[in-house]
């Protein structure tokens, strides 16, 4: 099953890099489910919300997708990022954990569905400048397209893309660094 995931997900990411937005959404959904399974099994004590780590990993995968070599397998790359973000989350809460590298390679993460709770990402979103925040919220929470957001806010589509890009980069950078 891991072999199938690997082939399918790397195909999707390659297609996404070639400009296929549908493939990118599918890729992110697949990754979210796998990372969720991985993170939930690693977090046995409380203190860290697994979904926070899932979201932080997705953001990191997005802003760092140029660090994936298209001829390399995608899952080791994904799990290395997830593991790094998981350890980071524990460290911020003053915990030390060890996640063995070898264990990652054999991980058979079961896709899992999300649960809802208070999120670090909301704090990061609230910390954005108003222009970026309204663009990011319009596209994510309200589910508008780039075109709809542009006409709703009365700005150009280019301006929407720039604000979205900068807003996401800022969220990725300050995720979890705000006071908890």
């Amino acid at each position: 099953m891991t072999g199938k995931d690997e082939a399918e997900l790397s195909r999707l990411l390659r297609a996404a890099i070639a400009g296929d937005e549908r493939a990118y959404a599918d890729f992110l959904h697949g990754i979210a489910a796998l990372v969720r399974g991985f993170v939930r099994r690693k977090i046995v004590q409380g203190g860290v919300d697994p979904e926070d780590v899932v979201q932080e990993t997705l953001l990191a995968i997005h802003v760092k997708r140029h660090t994936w070599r298209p001829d390399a397998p995608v899952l080791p790359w994904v799990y290395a990022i997830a593991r790094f973000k998981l350890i980071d989350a524990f460290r911020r809460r003053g915990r030390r954990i060890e996640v063995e590298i070898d264990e990652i390679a054999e991980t058979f993460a079961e896709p899992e569905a999300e649960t809802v709770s208070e999120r670090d990402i909301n704090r990061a979103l609230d910390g954005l400048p108003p222009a970026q925040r309204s663009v990011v919220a319009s596209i994510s929470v309200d589910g508008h397209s780039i075109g709809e957001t542009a006409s709703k806010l009365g700005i150009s589509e280019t301006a929407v893309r720039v604000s979205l890009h900068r807003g996401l980069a800022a969220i990725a950078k300050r995720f979890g660094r705000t006071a908890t």
Partner: protein
Amino acid sequence: MRTEDLIKALDADARDEAMPMDRAWWLAVGVAMAIAAMVFFATIGPRPDIMPAMHTMRFMSKFVFTLTLAASAFALIRALSMPGASTRRATAWMIAAPLLVVLAVVLELFVVPEADWGKRLIGSNMMICMSFIPLIGIGPLAIFLGMLRYGAPTRPVLAGAVAGLLAGGLAATFYAAHCFDDSPLFVATWYTVAIAFLTALGALGGRFFVRW
């Protein structure tokens, strides 16, 4: 924000593609070499007798050491900056430069009479060596730490230290063209001290500057 909503935002931002890591690394090394060359030629420059010196084994051996260090550090730092990339082979290659230096030192001890060992070790300008290798290497180090920020090193301190080794290897390559002390005894001692300083600086940079 639900994860579902986050994915919508990431998907809408899919079009903006950054430069692939491998290409960015080659570009960074090119820029770093240009900066190192500028600092080198604007300050100390090559030694006047560089043409005849190029026919001596000792002079040329310095470039073998420094270029081996730079090449192996370059391979390792590229792997370290990409999550999940295997670093095993690149790590093994890091032994090559120290091994060559040790070999050369042993040969030198055989060839040179014991009475001259001290003179060869101290050389004529170790202070210049220890100040100019870091001076030439500091610009490249800053560029490489910036590259680590652009990348995604899961071991930032180690990656920063390797950035210092790479910057040190490049800087020492330029400095070797200036230095009159060609004995492996001198190189093994003072070049190592200078490069170790850049390595420590790189590790510090990795700890405090390379966040992602």
